[in-house]
């Protein structure tokens, strides 16, 4: 005969399955927390290192963003270190915007072709090829840029061949598959009856594409382009291999230049931790990080606006 207390205890005890349930929930949630901790860690570490240039080395933030001379080891006439990051910031933006401008018409044109004009050929030829090219490592793009694009630029425009133009060509080919496949997704999301309604009203195929499908897919297409820009902005090695790595204001598109990523990849290994030269590089990394957050924000805003319509 069990006492009521024992009985109560037995009834209120977790079953084996319930314990397993709690265990599973805790384990899977801690995996999730770990990822969040990584994100917070990355932002925290890079920010604390990047800010050190301004707090412990007393560099003026405005000078950092607008001065044109990048020689962190040298001090200028006023005894201030030369840490003007403008050439790299301009280089990064120029290369990103130019490659997006060139890639967008090609990517959207191809996506329209794949989805609206010839779905059969699109599925058989273009889809597998773009999928494969999305996966090609960026160093391979860089190497091809170095062995094909740079000599071609040199032959046509003279100079060394290294520069913004070569970088733009490499990034154009690199983001093309990504933007194309995302644009295809955006076009695919446009309901079929939009097209049917337009054609039934007597519109030609081009009028349907231009006035109905592309308009309806605009938020998705914009997301695709911004995504491509984010990828171009953050790309390091492929750009570093063809841009020439001269931290100067680019005078023309065929002069050697530098981007935030190219200076980072070449510089971090050659400076001493904690020195001004090193801190200045971390500040560049912080700019890169903040820009990738901005791109993220833009993509979110576009998504929200697209949903409202």
């Amino acid at each position, binding site marked *: 005969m069990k006492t009521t207390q024992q009985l109560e205890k037995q009834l209120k005890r977790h079953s084996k399955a319930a314990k397993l349930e709690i265990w599973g929930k805790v384990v899977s949630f801690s995996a*999730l927390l770990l*990822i969040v901790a990584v*994100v917070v860690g990355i932002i925290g570490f*890079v920010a604390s290192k990047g800010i050190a240039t301004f707090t412990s080395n007393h560099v003026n933030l405005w000078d950092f963003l607008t001065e044109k001379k990048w020689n962190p080891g040298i001090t200028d006439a006023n005894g201030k270190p030369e840490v003007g990051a403008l050439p790299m910031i301009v280089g990064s933006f120029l290369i990103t915007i130019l490659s997006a401008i060139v890639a967008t018409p090609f990517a959207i044109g*191809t996506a329209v072709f794949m989805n609206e004009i010839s779905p059969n050929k699109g599925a058989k030829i273009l889809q597998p090829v773009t999928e*494969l090219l999305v996966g090609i490592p*960026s*160093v391979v793009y860089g190497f091809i840029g170095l062995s094909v694009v740079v000599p071609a630029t040199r032959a046509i425009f003279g100079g060394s061949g290294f520069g913004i133009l070569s970088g733009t060509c490499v990034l154009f080919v690199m983001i093309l*598959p990504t933007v194309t496949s995302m644009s295809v997704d955006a076009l695919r999301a446009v309901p079929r009856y939009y097209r049917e309604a337009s054609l039934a009203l007597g519109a030609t195929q081009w009028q349907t594409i231009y006035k109905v499908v592309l308009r309806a897919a605009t938020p998705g297409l914009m997301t695709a382009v911004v995504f491509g820009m984010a990828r171009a902005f953050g790309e390091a090695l492929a750009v570093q291999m063809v841009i020439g790595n001269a931290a100067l204001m680019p005078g023309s598109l065929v002069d050697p230049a530098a981007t935030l990523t190219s200076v980072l990849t070449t510089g971090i290994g050659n400076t001493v931790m904690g020195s001004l030269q090193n801190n200045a590089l971390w500040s560049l990394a912080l700019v890169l990080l903040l820009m*990738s957050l901005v791109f993220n924000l833009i993509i979110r805003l576009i998504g929200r606006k697209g949903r409202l319509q």
Partner: protein
Amino acid sequence: MNPKTQNKIAIGTLYGVAGLVVLILLALLGYILVSGLPQLSWHFLTAPAKAFLKGGGVGVQLYNSFYLLILAMLISFPIALGAAIYLYEYARDNWVTTTIRTAIEILSSLPSVVVGLFGFLFFVVKLRLGFSILSGAFALTFFNLPLLTRSIEDSLRTIDLSQREGGLALGLSRWETITRVILPAAVPSILTGVILSAGRVFGEAAALIYTAGQSAPALDFTDWNPFNISSPLNPMRPAETLAVHIWKINSEGIMPDAKAISSGSSAVLVLAILIFNFAARYLGKRLYKRLTSA
């Protein structure tokens, strides 16, 4: 201009644009394979690299790439699986979940060079792991986690709700339903996702140059004691991968046949990605047939 001519011109232009893009992409693939495949030989794939002379191979780099890939996958898969299970099966739709999703999105959009720099700061310098396979594997894990989590979550999404209801109706707990019913059904598509992300990890270089290092000490393939410095299994040795090797010899290499070696290495990388892609499709289909007896 009347709408019909306009239509013809526009469609013609689109044909031209699509054709040009196909041409560019095929020329790219063709160039990699045509210039790279003649370089491939058993010697090239197995011999160690030479710094100053020609005739070196990429054996050590190739081995390092695979070793790092396997380590990174071993670390990132359980974490991504747990995170995806919680996100899709347990998480309620509230601000905590939204914040977590935003964090994952941010991680996936971070440039890989930033992830690599963080790995350098945290693992190489703070935890004093040095330029090592372990540091590299952690950096690759961070790079891989958001993509893998998203792909596993997508796999879970494809499993019908009725399967979950069936499990619960039989008196299984939610966790039991997940491990006994949902996961077995999702294995084929999870596997496809894992292999595809493996392809991305295999070719990653920017996250590795300051974590796994840029040097490849000679390995003694008869010594499998992980504590010896020349053992291939030692996780604390610096390890240059194939992708890093291509970058390294092109930016500061001094061997006379740098171009030939890069062509060969590029072809190996692209072939590996091709194999990963086909394997993902084939294994996914095969497993799906076997597990669902469809």
